[in-house]
């Protein structure tokens, strides 16, 4: 009987542990592909050395909705020609500015199209409450793309919005976010 009991319990435990390990460690590696930004953008150089503010490049529309990533129009004022010795800057000028091609930046928090998010309504919060603190990064973080859904790993889920709204007393009615 003892032998019989160990041949049931032990495999069960092995399966249980292996499954938990694979589920928490292996599954994310399978689910997400890793991508890097097309050009390494050094935020530190711009924020600390050039004293630029987030709003200088990341502008919102009048209604506070997302206006998209900065375009070449934001950059050519300084980078029509190569300014420094950073090879990524040289590549940016050669491959994008001179060829009038926009960089396909990867947005870490881009929400689905059916979500309306006004930055003005959330202006009391720090940018880093939701976004990675890229202002202190010389190399943007790795972008994890969900192979199934196609969204960034960092895309905020609805429960996170609802939780924050509930805690701060804001309405959780559907139309607040889904116009």
């Amino acid at each position: 009987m003892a032998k019989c009991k160990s041949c049931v319990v032990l495999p069960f435990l092995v399966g249980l542990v292996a499954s938990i390990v694979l589920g928490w460690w292996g599954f994310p590696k399978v689910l997400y592909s890793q991508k890097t930004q097309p050009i390494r953008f050094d935020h530190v150089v711009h924020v600390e050395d050039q004293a630029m503010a987030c709003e200088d490049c990341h502008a919102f529309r009048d209604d506070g909705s997302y206006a998209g990533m900065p375009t070449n129009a934001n950059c050519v004022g300084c980078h029509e020609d190569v300014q420094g010795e950073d090879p990524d800057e040289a590549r940016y000028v050669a491959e994008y500015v001179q060829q009038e091609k926009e960089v396909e930046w990867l947005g870490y928090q881009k929400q689905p199209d059916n979500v309306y998010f006004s930055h003005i309504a959330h202006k009391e919060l720090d940018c880093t409450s939701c976004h990675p603190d890229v202002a202190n990064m010389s190399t943007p973080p790795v972008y994890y793309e969900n192979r199934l859904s196609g969204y960034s790993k960092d895309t905020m889920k609805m429960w996170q919005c609802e939780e924050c709204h509930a805690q701060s007393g804001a309405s959780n009615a559907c139309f607040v976010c889904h116009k």
Partner: protein
Amino acid sequence: MGLDRRSFISLVAGGVAGSLFTPVIWKTLDDVSIWTQNWPWIPRLQYGEELTFPALCKLGSDAYGVKVKTVGGRPVTAEGNPDHPLSLGGICPLGAASVHLLYSPSRVKNPKLKDGSSFKDITWAEAEELLAGKIREAGSNVAMISGDETGSVTDVLSGLVGKAGSDKSFFMPGESAPAAAALAMLGGDGQVGYDIENANYVLLLGADALGSWGNVARNGKAFSASREKGVKFVYVGPAQNGTSAVADSWVPCNTGTEPVLALGIAAVIAGTSRDRSSWPGFASFAKFVQTAYPLDKVAEITGVKAAVITGLAQELVRAGRPLVLTAAEAGQGLGAFELAAGMSLNMLLQRVNAVGGVRILPWAPKVVEAAADRKTMFANDLVAYLSSVADGGAEAPALLMVYGANPAYALPNLTKAQAAMDKAGFVVSFSSFMDETAAMADLIMPDSYAFERLDDAYSPYGSGQPNYTVVAPVIKPVFDTRPAGDVLLVVAAKAELDLGFESFEDVVKAKAEALGADFDEMVEGAAWVSEEFPAQDLALWTTPLQELAVAAKDGKSLALAPVQRLKIGSAKIAIPPFNTNAIRFDEMLGNDMYVLLNAATAKNLGLKKDDAVKIASSGGECKARVRIFEGVMNDTVVAPLGLGHTAWDAFSRDKGDNVYKLLAADTEAESGLSRFATVRVTVSKA
């Protein structure tokens, strides 16, 4: 210790149990649910900076300013431009769909040369060399057709034809030409406009001013503003339409006989006690209308009761600032005499060059020396010319150039027009779309679309004041297209014909300068408006007085009332894909279009709702289904223009039938213009 069956099941059970404590199942389910909403055909929002740019809409018969909103540099929608005098913030159904046409499946994406029954792609250099060679070969045997009465590209094209030694510069039919000829009959000279905003009584004789006639957006704004001011709008026409639906009253009138009604009203007004004996031409005019158009005769021809005619005359006299606007329901087809009839009524009411009346606008300045001026072009009748070519009465052009027009689809005497184009030695189409004319052309040099090119517009027909608009491109060409104005100048240079300009921008600058407008301010969005109206020395109908031609009733045929509904397109544009949802089930079912008959007429013909019918005239035949609608005069059939395309795309091709086939034109002896507003047709079960 081997892995026996029991151990394996235990291992799997452990694995399953463990997975419940990981995100694998829950996360996968969540992501799958998101993935199921991520189909590639679901529209995506465009992100980026939002801007608006002034632009022009020329898709209908008029031209007016719109504002194009761009997001991230890409146009997404067009809105009315509150700063433009012909929009005042309004927009027409074609303007509302205009941005989407940028990406229409009908766009011609690059130059094409006829290759047997299809086309082969060629480069711009090849196309320009080819056309320059054809111009040199053709000598003076060239002709041009333009569908743009307002823009300077027409001047460049006409200049090219003129420099080659030809006077064959034509516009597509419209009401500018008969209006100008009518004004000339009364001794005037200029472009006819209507100051609807400042009138306090507007009698619309046939003009579907709120649906398709003239400056539709501006008309709508003027009507809207009139509600608070107590201005009365009266619509006269054979069928209820968008204008009659909101006008203060609708006076049913037999198709195309609105000018007769105008003369009947004139007879009543001329008979009032006011002394007009000193007015030039009044005596003979009054005698003519009172003799030729007594009330009972007018009532019989028009179907309008004598008391109603008298009432309209009294209202006009009492109004103070009345305005009479005469037009065909379809915005074309009236002769000059017919338009002069309505104009005479305005003269009798002393409403010419008066605030709230008919305004005479100066002609656009001519900057391309070799081009025919607008007045000359309006006098050249395209329908008569093509009919003559088809019949062998005139030599077919060795080279025919078509810009902004679709004569292979949208002309009366259509069979003859198509035959004449077939006889032309070489046909070139400057079209943004694969329309019927492009499809039959030998060479297509695709024009950049409205928002991709510099363009201008001088006082579209109906404008109440002289105005000029210049717009810069909103976006770079989406496909390998080029603005026709620039292409024509390049080709002219290659053919060694000097038009005096190197770029189209120079032409527009010269026109702006000639008007005293600031080009730089205009491309930023400022419209030029003038309040100068050339003085006119008019006399009541100075040409030989004669009765208007009215198609005789024969008891078997019906009067055809062709109508324009801008949502389904115009003479230039087929159904915009964006507008297909606006077409009602009782306007089109499947691929069958509906024509309207009232119940009495349908009963006489043995027809009932949804019956398939054949409509025939001396010009051709159409197929349709019957819709019973009591807002139509007896013995009248209302049929929509703009359907039945054989080219374009799946949104338009073979949808309904082409009513232009039914429009048989005759030539007005005095003016030489074609008239086709009173066509009679037979309607029988198909």
